[in-house]
């Protein structure tokens, strides 16, 4: 067992974990943050995507012990985050989710695309979603929802461009 201190959704967490424990399992099994999902555990499907130090990362390919002294954000966080709020609105309005399993990771990936200004066109958004599999929606509505949220965000903060 290894002692770790991780900042999760803004709160300090101290725990003792087996080194082999993935960040995904640490969040799901030890912190009861089950919004992060597992679909493959080899980094392809994207359902486990969280933010580590502000950047998207595969929690299935990240060890919990490697997150010592790092900041992790999961779908349960983002309180007050305007980009996630806009995305939640447009995903709902555009029917961009069906079973909901890929949705938390889609939102986190989409937020990253918008913040890095990689959501400017349908092509760009589709390329940016390459690492997030959805088996239900066929992606059309997800792309529309992200484009709309990106527009909303761009209008609200034109000086931040």
């Amino acid at each position, binding site marked *: 067992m*290894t002692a770790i201190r991780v900042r999760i959704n803004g709160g300090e967490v101290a725990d003792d974990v*087996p*080194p*082999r424990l*993935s960040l995904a*399992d640490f969040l799901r099994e030890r912190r009861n943050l089950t919004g992060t999902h597992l679909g493959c*555990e*080899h*980094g392809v499907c*994207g359902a486990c*995507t969280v933010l*580590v130090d502000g*950047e*998207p*990362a*595969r929690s*299935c*390919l*990240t*060890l919990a*012990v*490697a997150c*010592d002294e790092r900041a992790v954000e999961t779908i349960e966080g983002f309180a007050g985050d305007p980009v996630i709020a806009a995305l939640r609105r447009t995903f709902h309005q555009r029917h961009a989710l069906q079973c909901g399993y890929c949705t938390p990771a889609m939102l986190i*990936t989409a937020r*990253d695309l918008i913040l890095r200004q990689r959501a400017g066109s349908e092509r760009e958004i589709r*390329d*940016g979603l*390459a*690492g997030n599999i959805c088996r239900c929606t066929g992606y059309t509505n997800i792309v529309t929802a992200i484009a709309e949220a990106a527009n909303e965000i761009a209008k609200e903060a034109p000086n931040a461009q």
Partner: protein
Amino acid sequence: MKAPPVDYIRPRSLTEALDLLANAGAEGRVIAGGQSLLAMMNLRLASPGLLIDIARLPELLTAADHDDAVTLGACVTHAAIEDGRVADPSHGLMPRVAATLAYRAIRTRGTIGGSLALADPAAEWPAVLSALDAEVILYGSSGRRELKCTEFTTGIFQTKLAENEIIESARVPKLSAETRCGYVKLCRKSGEFANALAVVVADPRRGYWRVVCGAANGAPLVLANTSRLVAEAPRDPDALRGTIGSDLDHASDRHFDEFQRNLHTVAAVRAVQQVLV
């Protein structure tokens, strides 16, 4: 699957890391981004006894901009290269390549050193750095040594990395401003491993031309005759195809079936065409 049991330690310095590696013997394995190693452990295809985490070692995160080269620390991430957050010796080629590598969430953790050390035949960096005539700087119990990338990678998942040695950095010569580069990655699904990879660097000012094929059933393949032909700005497409095919056929350490041979040929032709215009 879940990874098998393993121990973990995060040294605070490079020297400490090497000591740990030496003491651990065959059971010890360095881990940087872990994007390949942890995937293998999750499939129970790898079961090291001790993971030595080097991802945060400041010595490995440097990016030094010299007169004629850029030295990138082994733990510089693909995303850092993609975003242009580190000096770029390649006038855009490396960021362009980085953007096609797996997915963003992998790129934020995966490292250039990790890619070189693993030597997955379908990986991008071994082929690109071979095309750029880069060197790896290795650091081990017997000190530092440098090897050309073309010599460093010897086969599928095989390199000249010695026991108790790690990749410290990659030193990439700076391309002239007028350099033209070609890069073709053929795959069906965005972000997957390449089915064929071709990289062309044409830097007449430095008298340097090189054509490399990756995802080629072995170490990255330098197409020697094609490289010389590119220097002559060939106009005859059949001659180009023929020279490429002959270079592929002369790779004695590997075999291509008809489909693969054709695919590598087409990738190389198209990469060359990006350069000639």
